[in-house]
């Protein structure tokens, strides 16, 4: 216990504040302690969900074929809820507290609510885990979606609602901070706080949808209402089902702006453009959830075109804005200090051995190329027919969430270990290896999932469907080589995750305490606020521009390939 208590100890002044030696922010004890609490809880959820990654991947890789079908769906549900929801949402509350009171240099208000929110979330998370693990026939494992009228225990819907209520309560201190900062003033929030604020609003939208969906299903399971409409449930469900992943996206982008600045020396190249992109998200990104409903009965063509195309491209456009603005911030910041010339010198001379920097950059690149492009392509009405419920979809969300958000959050956790827990890494070499090992292994595993889905049509949500389909002469055996590669790299990715948890927990328990004022090697060369150089708008951003042109070229190629495959099909629909 004393080891845990010592994690929450730092040298604060009489007023409870201390100056952070890396960010220069005035950090209050209350904010820091709650960021640590939510962050540590998130890492526990990551470890739980990650251990189920092993059994899920080793079952789907039929060469090993670890579990039978009934255990597989239980393990898959545990994997999904702990990683997609609990690891992410606990981290996101921490991101809100950093982006709100910490960046603004305030105490955390409403601390009792923060504590109540944490307790409620933990109770909900344990309840969801228990209801999945203890589910008995005729109830099925709920997967992430729990589509009605599949029989799922009412305890699942009930405890999921408890968790969502807890997350809402935990977000209130953040909103109170923003409210008190901006009320009666014409203050413009710093970009990171602004991004966190938009993240918070998207989160509330998603949570309301989730409470509505699960309350509707719960009412049916406890016989308050006689029947449920699967289409209405799906519409409500996907407000949270995909909305929760939009929270991840916004939190991740906010973390990108934060970390590229503090460890890479990035500047904001245009406040106007970056903020406009966040506003576009606010209005449009939740419409992206409609891509789950594109091949449902009962949706008009107009509904589909509006939701997934016309308006959703407001959000896709916003993502392309950030795709330029964030690397441009690094390029401008480093060029202004004279760090690296030529087309890419600013990038090659960057602090690649700093795992926080490397994790952030890999998150940006892998999210964009693997997650963003596939998201927009599969979000087109017609192409969606070929992706829906195949392993390609699973590849898409591993690219966005496992590569994009998880890598960014890995960077953030490592950053917090140095700056808030004030611990040195137990091994710098192992810490530096984390983003490389995890990024590379998970990228290959993700690509194999996409190939298995698109090129071989292998369905998702099956324990086995490649080598061993009972009662059918039909077979997906052609995809076996893909799965041999997938299995090996999934194992490597899981080992990299173990490395992350090991280094993090090891550093917290056994890392040397950093002396006051020590930056732990986190600061960019020349410090955080290097002066000099030309104004940002006059810096030659040609490296970023070249990278973005490559991105657009890959985007166009993937788009054309998918449409080519689609037009090879027989004629379908009106």
């Amino acid at each position, binding site marked *: 216990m004393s080891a845990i208590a010592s994690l929450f100890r730092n040298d604060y002044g009489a007023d409870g504040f201390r100056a952070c030696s890396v960010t220069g922010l005035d950090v209050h004890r209350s904010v820091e302690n709650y960021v640590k609490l939510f962050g540590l809880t998130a890492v526990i959820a990551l470890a739980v969900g990650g251990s189920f990654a092993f059994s899920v991947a080793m079952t789907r890789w039929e060469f090993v074929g670890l579990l039978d079908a009934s255990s597989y769906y239980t393990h898959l549900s545990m994997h999904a809820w702990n990683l997609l929801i609990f690891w992410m949402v606990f981290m996101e509350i921490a991101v809100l507290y950093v982006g709100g009171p910490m960046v603004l240099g305030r105490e955390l208000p409403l601390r009792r609510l923060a504590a109540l929110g944490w307790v409620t979330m933990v109770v909900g998370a344990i309840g969801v885990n228990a209801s999945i693990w203890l589910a008995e026939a005729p109830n099925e494992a709920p997967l992430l979606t729990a589509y009605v009228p599949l029989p799922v225990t009412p305890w699942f819907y009930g405890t999921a609602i408890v968790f969502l209520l807890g997350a809402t309560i935990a977000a209130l201190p953040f909103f109170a901070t923003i409210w008190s900062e901006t009320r009666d003033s014409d203050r413009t929030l710093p970009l990171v706080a602004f991004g966190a604020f938009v993240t918070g609003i998207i989160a509330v939208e998603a949570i309301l949808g989730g409470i509505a969906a699960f309350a509707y299903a719960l009412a049916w399971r406890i016989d308050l209402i006689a029947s449920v409409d699967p289409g209405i449930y799906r519409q409500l469900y996907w407000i949270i089902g995909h909305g929760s992943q939009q929270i991840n996206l916004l939190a991740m982008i906010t973390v990108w702006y934060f970390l590229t600045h503090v460890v890479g020396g990035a500047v904001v190249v245009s406040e106007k453009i970056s903020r406009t992109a966040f506003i576009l998200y606010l209005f449009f990104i939740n419409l992206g959830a409609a891509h789950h409903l594109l091949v*449902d*009965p009962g949706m008009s063509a107009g509904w589909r075109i509006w939701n997934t195309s016309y308006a959703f491209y407001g959000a896709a456009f916003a993502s392309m804005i950030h795709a330029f603005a964030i690397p441009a911030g690094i390029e401008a910041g480093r060029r202004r200090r004279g760090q690296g010339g030529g087309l890419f010198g600013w990038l090659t001379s960057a602090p690649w051995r700093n795992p926080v920097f490397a994790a952030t950059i890999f998150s940006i690149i892998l999210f964009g190329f693997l997650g963003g492009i596939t998201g927009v392509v599969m979000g087109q009405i017609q192409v969606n027919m070929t992706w829906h419920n195949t392993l390609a979809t699973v590849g898409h969300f591993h690219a966005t969430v496992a590569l994009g958000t998880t890598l960014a959050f890995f960077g953030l956790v490592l950053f917090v270990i140095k700056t808030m827990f004030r611990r040195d890494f137990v091994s710098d070499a192992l810490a530096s290896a984390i983003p490389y090992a995890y990024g590379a292994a998970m990228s290959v595993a993700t690509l194999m999932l996409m190939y298995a889905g698109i090129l071989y049509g292998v369905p998702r949500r099956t324990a086995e469907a490649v080598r061993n389909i009972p009662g059918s002469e039909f077979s997906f055996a052609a995809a076996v080589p893909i799965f041999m590669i997938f299995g090996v790299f999934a194992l490597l990715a899981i080992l990299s995750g173990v490395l992350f948890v090991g280094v993090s927990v090891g550093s917290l328990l056994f890392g040397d305490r950093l002396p006051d004022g020590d930056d732990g090697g986190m600061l960019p060369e020349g410090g955080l606020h290097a002066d000099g150089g030309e104004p940002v708008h006059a810096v030659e951003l040609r490296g970023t521009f070249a990278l973005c042109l490559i991105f657009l070229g890959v985007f166009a190629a993937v788009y054309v390939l998918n449409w080519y495959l689609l037009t090879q099909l027989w004629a379908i629909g009106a």
Partner: protein
Amino acid sequence: MSNPLEDPDDDWWNSPVNRRESIWLGLAGAWSLGIFTWMAGFTQFGDQNPIGTTYDVDPEEYQARVGEYKETTEETDDGLIPPGDDVYVGAMRFNWDGLPVVLEAGREYDIHLGAYDVQHGFSVRPEENLNKQINLQVFPGSEWVIPMTFDEPGTYHVVCNEFCGQGHRTMHGRFTVVEG
């Protein structure tokens, strides 16, 4: 000097934008509009659109309708031969009612999709070319009518790709498409 942890300068809205960022905004905007136009246009000129007509129907009533339809079909070793252009498929745990069915290449059929119990996934692909595939969602309570024309003769397999219970992976059906 703008940094994301501090309030921006007072005139942040009027600060000049880097020339290359402006060009990128134009490219990204044009690309977004372009793919929107293509997708919306394809619903008019394209041959692959997951659009049909949906009717509300009680699951038991739909099951009865599939039963009546099956009475009118001709039974062969390769499957049922429908009397007209309507083909009824009923999804149930863990079977595709109404399949296998024998269809003619080049002829347009109205495929009726519905479920008797829970949600299912209607996933179709030819046996010899796995990447030619479509996936549609099937609900209890809805009858979705989608026209389809199979150009090539061959065997097309139907698997369920929505989790409908633990026997879900065994849920298979078949279209046998013959020369018309």
